[in-house]
Structures are given as C-alpha cells and as structure tokens.
C-alpha cells in the first residue's frame, strides 16, 4: 500500500518536471510544429457560431474570433508557433462566447416576445372592458 503511494507521488512530479522542461526549453529554443489541432478547433467553433446566427446576435465576438484565426494563420506563416497556438485558442474561446451570447439573446428574445404578447392581450382586454357600456 505504502509503496504504491510512494510510487505515485514520486512519478507524478518527475513526469511534470520532464514535460515542463521540454516545453520551456522548447519555447526558448527550437520551433515547434504548427498547432493544427487548435487551428481546426477554432475554425469549427467559428462555423458553429455562424450557423447559430452569431453574425446577427453577437457580431463583435464573431468578428474578433475571425480576427484571432487570421492572426493565428499569419503567425504560422511567420513560424511563430507559440503565438499561433495562443491566437487559435483565443479565436476558439471567442467563437464559443459568440455562440453562448447568441443563445442567451435568442432565449431572452423568446421570453420578451412571450411577455409582450401576454401584456398586449391584457391591454386589449382592459381596453375592450373600458369601452363596455
């Protein structure tokens, strides 16, 4: 029991140290490959937002997501892969925000419309009962 715990506790930080060292050294030294997965994820998130009419309901966020993706592509072409990965991630998160805000606005619009139609009904009732002889 004890030995298993020790083995776990020992292996985790060691792996972290190795991984961390590789990443940090990598940042300082050689150029990593292009962040293809992140770029694709950003593209998909933008497409999803567009499909949900974010262009109408959250145009600012969608535009920012597109700008981020363009910046990521430019960074790739400039061989700045760390930057490219960050831009791609920013773009994806911004596109997700565009989708989330679009959904929120749509949900609120539906509720507003329901509230409006209800109050219109009530107003009409009051008006017609006011005219009553």
């Amino acid at each position, binding site marked *: 029991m004890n030995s298993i715990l020790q083995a776990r*506790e*020992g292996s*985790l*930080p*060691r*792996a*972290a*140290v190795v*991984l*961390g*060292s590789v*990443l*940090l*050294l990598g*940042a*300082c030294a050689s150029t990593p490959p292009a962040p293809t997965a992140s770029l694709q994820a950003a593209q998909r998130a933008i497409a999803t937002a567009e499909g949900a009419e974010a262009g109408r309901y959250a145009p600012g966020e969608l535009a920012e997501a597109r700008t981020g993706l363009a910046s990521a592509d430019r960074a790739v072409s400039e061989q700045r892969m760390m930057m490219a990965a*960050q831009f791609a*991630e*920013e773009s994806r*998160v*911004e596109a*997700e*925000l565009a989708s*989330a*805000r679009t*959904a*929120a606005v749509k*949900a*609120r619009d*539906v*509720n507003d419309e*329901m*509230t409006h*139609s*209800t109050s219109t*009904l*009530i107003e*009409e*009732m009051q008006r*017609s*009962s006011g005219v*009553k*002889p």
Partner: protein
Amino acid sequence: MNTANLSGALNSGSALIATAVAAILLASCATAPSKPDGAAEARTKLTQLQSDPNLANRAPLAFKEADTAVRTAEQPQADKDLAAYRVYLADRKVEIARAQAQTSLAEDQRSVLSAQRERARLDARTREVDAAKDQVVTARAESAEQKVVAEQARGAADAARLAAASSEQQAAELQRQVDTLQAKPTDRGLVLTLGDVLFTTGRADLKTGASGNLNRLVAFLDKYPDRTVAIEGYTDSVGSEEYNQGLSERRADSVKSYLAGQGIDAIRISASGKGESDPVSGNDSAAGRQQNRRVEVIISNPAPGIPAASLR
C-alpha cells in the same frame, strides 16, 4: 499544464526539487515571476457571477472551466504576454459561463411566462363571452323601433335560410300547423279566435275541458319558438263598460296563465283586455253577442319569407 502539476506536487517531498528545477528553468527564459495584471478583475467577475442567486449553479461545466481558467490566470507569470493571454481567456470563459447561465435561466422562466400567457388568453376568451352576453342584453334593451329593425333583419336572414334550404317543405309544414290551429292569417299575424265557450258567462277562469284548441296553440308555439303571441280579450256590450273591460282583461290573463303553465315562456306572451270596444258582429242579437265574446290570440309573423298572404 506544467505549472498546475507543479503546484499539485507541492505537498510531496519531491516538490522541493521540482520547484527548484522549475525556478531554474523559468529563470533561464525570463526575469523573476510577477503577479499578472487583470487576474484579480477576472476573479472578481467570477465571484460575482457565482454569488448571483439567479445564475449560480446553472451551467456547472462552464463555471468549472471558468474557475480553472481564472486559477491559471492567477498563477504568477513572468512572461507578460502569456499572463495577458491567460487573463484574456479567463475573462472570456467567465463571460461564456454567464451567457450559458442566462440562457438556462431564460429557459426556466419560459414555463412561467407560458402559464401567464395561457391565463391571459383564457381571461380574454372569458371576457369575449361576457361581452357577447352584454351585447345580447343591450340588444334586448334596444328601443321598440330597433327591435322592429332587428326583427326584420332576422326575418330576412330566416327568409334567406329558408330559401337556401327546404323553404317549400317548411312553408307546407307551417301551413299544416296553421290549418290544425284553425288560425286566420292577417296583416297582424296569425289570428286564432277562441270563442266564449272557454268561459262561463261573467267569469274569467277557463272551463275544464275547454283546453283542446289551447293545447294545439301550445304545440304550435313549442314548434315555432321564435313566435310571440298577443292575447286580447273582448266582450259584448252587455253590462257596464268598466266591468267588461276588466272581464276582458282577466280572460286574456287566464289564457296567458294557461299557456305559461304549459311551459311557454311568459316573455313571449302579452295579454290585454279590449272590453266591448271592438265587436266583430252586432250586439243586437244573441248570435252576434256570442261572436263578440271572444279571446283573440295573435301570433306574430317573424318570417316574412313565408308571408301571411301565402297562407289560406
């Protein structure tokens, strides 16, 4: 990723070594770590969102991601660009969590709104029905002239309906009923004359067994519920004018009571006494006086589509 693992390892004994290695590695890239700008604001936004009773616990996954992102942003980071990038991500993830929670809240509120709208619709329908009832009452309260106009309109509608449907058949049926009743079509309507055989001389109550013709009238009125009747009592000239007036009124009322007792709505029946004022024959002979002692029942003509003139 690596920083999180490093912090998780702080508890263990080997953490010291890990920290030392990380510090050396970080130092090799940049200067000493500093507190990231904007991380505190992201934390404040998240805390506010988490303490909003309407929004907290609504989008648990997004809240968790936002919390993780804020924690990451709060890590000391010497690379200012990386720190700013993490703060930016944290801020956006808090906003995503907020938007998702708002969506969830709106969806929950919808059932309440839907119930409110249904209630309003029901109220509106109820009021429409009430208004229609009011209109009926108003129409009833209209002046006699307007009633005549309405009657004519209804008559026209009836006529149209009759023409469109089996007008001939209905006319024939009415004719049969009128024949059974032995009523006479006039400009005032169908006039049914009930002789004095209904009453004992000088009395106003109906004779028992004198109801045959009246029952045919009841059957007729049952069949034509849109028709109203005016009952008029007449006497001969024997006796004082006042007495005859009263007697004629009481006899007309008797007939009205009888009809009402047979289930004819009293609203459809009016009764009046004409006394000796309008004889149909001379009062100088017994036969003439007998003809003058009578009750006339005038049945309204609601349907000009079947004009009285078309009846025999």
